[in-house]
C-alpha cells in the first residue's frame, strides 16, 4: 500500500512538471506615479560619504514628487549575483532602479532584467556630454540599457623614492617596462620590479590592446576569440613576461588578482604596479603614502597611452518596474552631472561626463593621469552575455597562470583559452 501511494505521488509529480520550471515573462505594464521606489546600490568599504550623497538625492527627489518615497537598499557586492538572479526570477522582490557593474550588463540584459532607456536619454540634455566610449559600456547590441554612473581606469603607479635613488624615469613605451622592472629588482631584490598578478585580467588587457590585439572580433553579431592571434599573443606575452623570477616571482604573484597586486605595492613590496583611481584611499593609508606618483601606462610608441579597461558602474531601470517614469527620473537625478560631481567629491568616483571629468582633473593633480587615460580612449570587454560566462569560468586567469607557471607555453595556453571562449560565444 505504501508503495502504491508512493508511486501515485511520484507519478503525479512527474506529470505535473514534465519540463523544468520557468518564470513567466516579467512585464512592467503599469506605470504608477506614486508609491514606493525601490533602489539597490552597492555597499562600499566606507559607505558613509556615499550614503550622505544618496540621501541628499532621495530628499530632493521626494520633495519634487509628492506621494513618492524612495527606499534605498545597500547590497553586498559578493552576493550580488544571487540577489540579481533572484530579483529577475521573482519580480515581486525586484527593485525599480539598481546600480551594477558594467561587465555584468550583457548578462543581466539577456536575462531580461533591465529595460532599454535609449529613448529617455535622447530627451535628456545632460546625455549629450556622456563620454561616447563610456556610454558604449552601457550598450548591448547598440541599445542603451543604463546610465554610466562612474568609471574606473587603471594607470601605472611607481615609487618616486626608488626611482630617484636609482636615477630612473618612468617607462616611455610598453617595451621599456620589463627591462626597467628587471633592473629595479636586480638592484633591490626585496622589491618586485612591478607587482602584477596571474589573476589580474584587467591589468593584462592594456598590454593586449596596446599590441594591436583584442579579446574577440565581431562579425555579423558573432564573436570569435582573438587572444590567439599574432598580436594578441604578443600582448599577452608582454604581460606574462613580467610574471618571472627576476620581476614578479610566480610563487608570490601567480595567485594575485588586482587587489592583491595593488596591495603588494601599497605595503611597500613593489616598485611599480597597475592600479586604479579607486585605489587612492588605500595608497594614502599605506606604507607608500607620499612616496608614489602615477603616469598613464604607455603604449607602443613614445607619448601614446595603452588603452585601459573601462571599468565602472551603471544605473539601470529594471524591466519589471511598475514605476517606469519615476524610475527614469530618479536615474537622471542620481546619475546626472550635479550628483556625479558630488559623488566624486565624496568617494573619488570618476564622472562619466566629459565636461565634469575635465573640471575634476583641473583641480586635482592625482586625477590627471587617469583622465588622460580616459581621453586616450578606454576599451571594453565584448558586450555579450557570453563574457559573464568566460569571466566566471576564469578562462583568462587560467591562461595567464598556465603561462606564468610554465604549465603550458604561450601558444598552447592562448589556443586553449581561445577554444573555451569560442565555446562560450557559440552557445
Amino acid at each position, binding site marked *: 500500500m505504501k508503495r502504491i501511494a508512493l508511486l501515485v505521488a511520484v507519478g503525479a*509529480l512527474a506529470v505535473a512538471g514534465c519540463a523544468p520550471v520557468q518564470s513567466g515573462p516579467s512585464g512592467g505594464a503599469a506605470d504608477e506615479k506614486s508609491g514606493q521606489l525601490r533602489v539597490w546600490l552597492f555597499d562600499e568599504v566606507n559607505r558613509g560619504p556615499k550614503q550622505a550623497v544618496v540621501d541628499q538625492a532621495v530628499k530632493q527627489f521626494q520633495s519634487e514628487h509628492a506621494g513618492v518615497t524612495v527606499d534605498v537598499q545597500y547590497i553586498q557586492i559578493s552576493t550580488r*549575483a544571487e540577489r540579481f538572479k533572484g530579483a529577475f526570477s521573482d519580480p515581486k522582490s525586484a527593485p525599480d532602479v539598481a546600480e551594477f557593474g558594467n561587465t555584468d550588463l550583457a548578462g543581466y540584459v539577456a536575462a531580461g532584467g533591465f529595460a532599454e532607456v535609449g529613448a529617455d536619454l535622447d530627451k535628456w540634455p545632460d546625455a549629450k556630454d556622456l563620454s561616447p566610449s563610456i556610454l558604449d559600456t552601457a550598450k548591448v547590441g547598440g541599445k542603451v540599457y543604463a546610465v554610466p554612473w562612474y568609471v574606473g581606469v587603471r594607470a601605472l603607479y611607481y615609487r618616486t623614492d626608488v626611482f630617484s635613488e636609482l636615477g630612473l624615469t618612468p617607462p616611455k613605451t610598453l617595451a621599456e617596462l620589463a627591462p626597467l622592472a628587471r633592473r629595479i629588482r636586480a638592484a633591490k631584490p626585496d622589491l618586485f620590479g612591478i607587482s602584477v598578478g596571474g589573476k589580474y585580467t584587467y591589468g593584462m588587457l592594456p598590454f593586449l590592446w596596446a599590441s594591436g590585439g583584442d579579446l574577440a572580433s565581431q562579425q555579423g553579431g558573432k564573436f570569435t576569440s582573438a587572444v590567439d592571434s599574432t598580436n594578441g599573443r604578443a600582448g599577452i606575452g608582454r604581460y606574462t613576461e613580467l610574471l618571472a623570477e627576476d620581476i614578479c616571482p610566480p610563487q608570490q604573484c601567480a595567485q594575485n588578482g588586482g587587489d592583491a597586486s595593488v596591495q603588494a605595492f601599497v605595503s611597500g613590496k613593489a616598485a611599480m604596479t597597475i592600479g586604479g583611481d579607486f585605489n587612492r584611499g588605500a595608497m594614502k593609508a599605506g606604507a607608500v603614502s607620499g612616496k608614489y606618483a602615477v603616469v598613464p601606462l604607455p603604449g607602443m610608441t613614445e607619448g601614446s597611452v595603452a588603452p585601459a579597461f573601462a571599468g565602472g558602474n551603471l544605473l539601470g531601470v529594471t524591466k519589471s518596474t511598475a514605476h517606469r517614469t519615476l524610475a527614469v527620473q530618479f536615474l537622471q537625478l542620481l546619475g546626472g552631472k550635479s550628483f556625479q560631481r558630488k559623488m566624486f567629491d565624496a568617494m573619488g568616483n570618476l564622472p562619466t561626463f566629459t565636461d565634469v571629468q575635465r573640471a575634476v582633473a583641473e583641480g586635482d593633480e592625482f586625477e590627471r593621469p587617469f583622465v588622460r587615460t580616459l581621453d586616450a580612449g578606454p576599451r571594453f570587454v565584448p558586450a555579450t552575455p557570453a563574457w559573464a560566462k568566460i569571466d566566471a569560468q576564469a578562462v583568462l586567469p587560467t591562461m595567464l*597562470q598556465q603561462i606564468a607557471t610554465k604549465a603550458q607555453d604561450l601558444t598552447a595556453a592562448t589556443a586553449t583559452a581561445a577554444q573555451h571562449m569560442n565555446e562560450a560565444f557559440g552557445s
Partner: protein
Amino acid sequence: MIGISRDGRAALAYLAPAALVLIGLLGYPIYQLVLISFYDYGQEQVSGGAPLNWLGLGNYAKLLSDSQFWTVLAQTVGFAACCVLGTLLVGAALAVLATRVRAVPRALLFLAALGAWATPTVAGSTVWLFLFDANFGLVNEVLGLQGFSWTYDRWVAFGLVAAQVVWCSFPFVMVTLYAGIKAIPGEVVEAAALDGASVPRTVRSVILPLLRPLLVVVTIQSVIWDFKVFTQIYVMTGGGGVAGGNLVLNVYAYQQAFAASEYGLGSAIGVVMTVLLLGFTAIYLRALRRSGEAL
C-alpha cells in the same frame, strides 16, 4: 507479536510526516535536477526570456568528452580518499587515546575536538588560510619560510586543504568511535584476556567486530562528505587553485555552471556525482554483506 498489516499501517502513519517533507522538499527538487540536466537551461531560460531546448544526453556527452572533467574527477577521488583515510585514522587514534587517559586530559581533548567541530566551515577555512599565509602567517614565521606560498604548488595546496578537512571532520569519527569503544562491555575484553588472547588479537577478533557497524557508518558518512567538499577548496585555493589545478568536482560544477548560469550542465555534474557516490556505496555495502553484515 504485532501483525504485519498493523505494522504496515502504523509505519505509514509514522513515516507520513517525513515522507511529506522529503518527497515534497527534497524528492521533487532532485527530480527537477535530473530533468534540468537534459535541457539547455541558462539564466535566460530560468527567467522565461528564452524557450527551453531539450538536449537529451547532450550535457552528459559534453561533460564526458571534456578532458578536464576526467582530470578533476581523478583529483576528486584521490583527494576524497586521502581525506577519508586521514579522518578515520586521526579519529580512531584519538578515540583510542581518549580511552587510555584520565578525566582531565580527556576533557581537554574533547573540548578541542568539539571546538573544531563547532567552527563554521567558512571561518575554519579562513583561519587556516590565515595561519598559512605566505607573508602574514604564523607558520611561515615559525618555519622561517617567509614568502613561501602554501597554495602555489598543486600538491602542497591539496595537502593543506586535506589537513583542514581532516581537522574539521575527525571529531565526528572520534566521538562516535570513543562512544563505541566505551560501550563494549568490559567483561568481553576481560574474558578474551583470561582466554589468553594477546592485545592485538583481542583488538582484531573482539573489539573490531563489535565496532564494525559504527565503522561502516562513519566511513560512508565521511565518503559522502569528503567527496562533496566545496567550501574549503573554494575559500582556501581561491576557487580552484593556480590555473584550476586544485579543482574538485563540486567546485568545478559551480564554476562551469552556477557562476556562468549554465544550470543544465551543472545539474548534469550533480547527477554524475550522485551516481558515483551511489555506486561506491553499493559496492561497499555489497562487500560488507558478502562478509556477513547487513545494512
